[in-house]
């Protein structure tokens, strides 16, 4: 066990544990979208889980830090909040904010983080961008909305972590990047449950079973 300080409070945690997980488990909320418990190599792609650590130059993403004795972590400095708010606003500027008609309403990762960071869901300073690419119209079980997707990659983590053939992937690139499903038609033994398990990892209901 290692002793560390989070927001001046002493916490005991396992050496080598994931710092984001440790913070969350001890009641220090840190906005995060792309992390899943038990990941071995966090993509650190959502850029939301910043904290400051004494002796580090600037804020760092807590999901890519492992615990070692003596860490001094601060979760709510002004630079941290500034980075988090910008990251969130950028995500929202490319997100189809239509909560009333969204299956994730009230359990949406973006809503939670926006409330926590006190950011409006429709940031005014940024132009709203939408993708023209369509979703997975021909998929037997899944529906996908590229304009809801925050490209956190959690569905991929689940899909590639399970037994058997994965079928989800990032496709295209840059602003056009989407989640695509490929080769599922050849996977006769991929069950409906497996598909929905991947979809359940989605924090914003961009991916879900066809009928909801």
């Amino acid at each position, binding site marked *: 066990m290692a002793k560390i300080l989070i927001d001046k409070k002493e916490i005991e945690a396992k050496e080598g544990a994931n710092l984001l997980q440790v913070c969350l488990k001890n009641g220090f909320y840190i906005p995060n979208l792309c992390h899943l418990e038990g990941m071995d190599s966090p993509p650190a792609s959502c850029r939301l889980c910043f904290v400051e650590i004494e002796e580090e130059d600037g804020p760092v993403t807590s999901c890519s830090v492992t615990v070692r004795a003596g860490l001094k972590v601060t979760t709510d400095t002004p630079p941290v909040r500034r980075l988090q708010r910008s990251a969130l606003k950028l995500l929202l500027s490319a997100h189809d904010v239509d909560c009333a008609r969204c299956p994730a309403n009230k359990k949406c990762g973006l809503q939670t983080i926006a409330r926590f960071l006190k950011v409006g869901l429709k940031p005014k300073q940024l132009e709203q961008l939408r993708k023209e690419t369509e979703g997975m119209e021909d998929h037997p079980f899944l529906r996908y909305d590229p304009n809801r997707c925050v490209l956190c990659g959690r569905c991929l983590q689940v899909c590639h972590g399970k037994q058997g053939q*994965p*079928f989800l*992937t990032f*496709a295209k690139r840059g602003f056009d990047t989407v989640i695509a499903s*490929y080769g599922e038609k050849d996977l006769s033994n991929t069950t409906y449950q497996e598909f929905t398990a991947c979809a359940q990892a989605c924090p914003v209901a961009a991916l879900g079973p066809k009928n909801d």
Partner: protein
Amino acid sequence: MSETTKTTNEEILAEEKAMLEDIAARLSGFARERANLVPLLQMIQERHGYLPPDAINMVAEYLEIASCEVYGVATFYNQFRFTPPGKHQIKICLGTACHVKGGDIILENFERKLEIREGEITPDREFGIDRVACVGCCALAPVATVDESVQGHMAPSKVEGIILGFQIEKEREAREKQKDDAGEK
């Protein structure tokens, strides 16, 4: 009509089969390493003009990676296409000058006339539509290239004309072929 569609369908199937055999024969020229993924895809694109789903699966199997991963990598690059090119490939320029001069209207005209969208080809594989950025003759905007020839000052009536021209040409060829066939007997 149904007679001709049938033969084209058969032709297409035979072509696809030959293509997959060709790819299969060439796979072994590449070591089974992940690093060969893009070179393999390039070989297929270069020889056959596109990456058919079966070829993607073959590559995945050969390199022992999931086909969705192959697809993910392939879609990252602009150099790969996933539908066969049309016999006549029409490229509509949407570069700045052509955009200002209404290139999108020309694109829409082609799309409506051929009943396909950009990036697609007609079911008989005669025509395909792509959009491109500046072809380098902005003074002629809006520009389309049809196969290798550049068509400047495009207008909706020219769209009709181009397609009609190809259709007439095709009918003439068909008639001549019929005549030849009849003459041979």
